[in-house]
């Protein structure tokens, strides 16, 4: 059974210009331990899909149709008062945000921030929460975690903040990790390190990864499968290599050609040898 199924999800939003459909019949099937890339241009509905999965749609947005099943249960109606099941957040599905600089509480020490959710649900003592934070910070590659746990976010670099975010997302051992362009705000060198970390964590823990990005090179490095979104619809889905080698949709082809390749100096064609899976992408 797939770990996460988004089944013909349709979302409308009431805006200034009236009611608009922002997600149209979106279906995603994520197997346990599968890293999937979700790509598309800005405004194609990638982030909205993630927000729907976490039950955090903006005000005015409404799910008009569809189900989101986690381990076979429709989490949209399994919560209290037949609403979204908030228990799934953090423990089942977790999320890493785009900008670690603004996704961390500026006045709380990062160690406490990482473990705050567990501390609330399991009533950890201060000491054991601290130990857990240090252990996790060590796992996500933060040097000197004992000391860093007492830092405030502004004292950390961008890359370190994102590592903290990842640690916080993993603290309750979720089975699915949603990533909303988590490396876009980072330097290229740090990007590579953080991507490495995602890969390690994903493989170590068998995480289902739904990785939203507009950077196909990132998808190529990290994911096994890819879904392409456009105008609130999923227009293409498949195994990474086959989509990269032989996209069926024009739009996918355009996205692929829009990724500059560092090795051949010209834009990557759609030819059969486009081994984008191994190329370091430079944007």
């Amino acid at each position, binding site marked *: 059974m797939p770990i996460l199924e988004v089944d013909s999800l349709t979302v409308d939003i009431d805006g200034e210009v009236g009611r608009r459909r922002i997600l149209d019949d979106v279906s995603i099937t994520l197997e346990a331990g599968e890293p999937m890339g979700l790509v598309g241009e800005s405004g194609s509905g990638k982030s909205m899909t993630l927000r729907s999965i*976490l039950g955090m749609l903006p005000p005015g947005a409404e799910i008009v149709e569809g189900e989101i099943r986690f381990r076979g249960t429709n989490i949209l109606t399994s919560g209290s008062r037949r609403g979204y099941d*908030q228990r799934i*957040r953090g423990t089942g599905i*977790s999320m890493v945000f785009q900008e670690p600089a603004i*996704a961390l*509480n500026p006045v709380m020490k990062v160690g406490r921030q990482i473990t*705050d*959710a567990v501390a609330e649900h399991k009533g950890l003592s201060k000491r054991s929460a601290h130990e857990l934070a240090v252990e996790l910070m060590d796992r996500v590659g933060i040097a000197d975690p004992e000391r860093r746990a007492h830092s405030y976010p*502004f004292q950390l670099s961008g890359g370190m903040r994102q590592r903290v975010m990842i640690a916080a997302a993993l603290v309750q051992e979720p089975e699915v990790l949603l990533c909303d362009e988590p490396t876009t705000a980072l330097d290229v060198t740090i990007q590579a390190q953080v991507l490495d970390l995602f890969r390690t964590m994903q493989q170590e823990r068998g995480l289902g990864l739904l990785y939203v990005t507009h950077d196909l090179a990132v998808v190529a490095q990290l994911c096994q499968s890819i879904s392409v979104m456009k105008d609130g619809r999923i227009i293409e889905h498949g195994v990474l290599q086959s989509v990269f080698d032989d996209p069926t949709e024009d739009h996918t082809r355009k996205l692929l050609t829009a990724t500059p390749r560092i090795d051949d100096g010209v834009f990557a064609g759609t030819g059969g040898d486009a081994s984008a899976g191994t190329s370091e992408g430079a944007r």
Partner: protein
Amino acid sequence: MSDPLSSASPSAGAPAGTGPGAPSGLGPTPDPSGKPPRTRGGTAARATPQARFALPLPAFLRRHNLQLWTGLIILGAMVLLLAIGPLFVTADPNRQDLLNAFGGSSAAHPLGTDQLGRDILARFLHGGRIDLLVAVIAVIVPFILGTALGALAGYFGRWVDIVIMRLADIVSAFPFYVLVIVLVFVMGNGMASIFVAISAVSWVAYARIVRGEVLVLREEEFVSACRASGLTTPRILSRHVIPNTVSQGIIYAMSDIVLNIGVVVTLSFFGLGIVPPTADWGQMMNDGQQYMGTGNYGLILWPGFAVVLVSLALALIGDGLTNILKPRR
């Protein structure tokens, strides 16, 4: 070579400081050599106005938070004076000696005596204790009440917001002093009524401040991140949202203490505050203003001077705290 990502790095001649890449926060110092500041690709650079106003002081002085220190020193001296003063001034502040009314400065009465022959210094020290104590304690309840209500109003919006803020509007529709005086008048004078009256009125300011902060904070991504990690709303409010508003509350609290000193002194001046014969700066000034015409300035001078000094100190502390309590990113 410079980072190829930072296409917007300013050319060598560009005035430093206009560069987009200066890391936000933590005082980005413009490079005096005119070289382009090292940029970090992708970091959203926020232009932080560093100095609104810089005193023309030598650098070693400017490094310190002068306002804060000046305020703390003045207030500390005053508190110390009020705390240990009565140990040395053993005169009973309430003992009358009518034969010795308006006595001048002497060994027994360094500041002279008032119209009933009571020692002015002793009354000043004991009265100041009461005034400061009441003013400080009367900040705590409105602070907590206002912060809680403001946070609820800001975070939940809708009818919660409407109910709380209309209540605040009702309270603030009345002039501050009028409302306080009416409340104290109804409840009878004394310290308890002062506490209740001040609490009932001045929570409004805290609620407004905190609500405004929360309206901004609840849209922040870290609140989304908190929700995404499965934290419950009470936890998010109490541990993540409210702590981010506390600094603003504390800064306002400093000026609120000043206001409260004014209220206590004013109420006592009108005979509605501290019950006589307990000494209090307001009463002393009230007594003193009746005899100013006869050349007895001591009674009104010292308490008046003290009120101004304490207010100044608290205002300075408030300003100084503004500089250091800003949450940093």
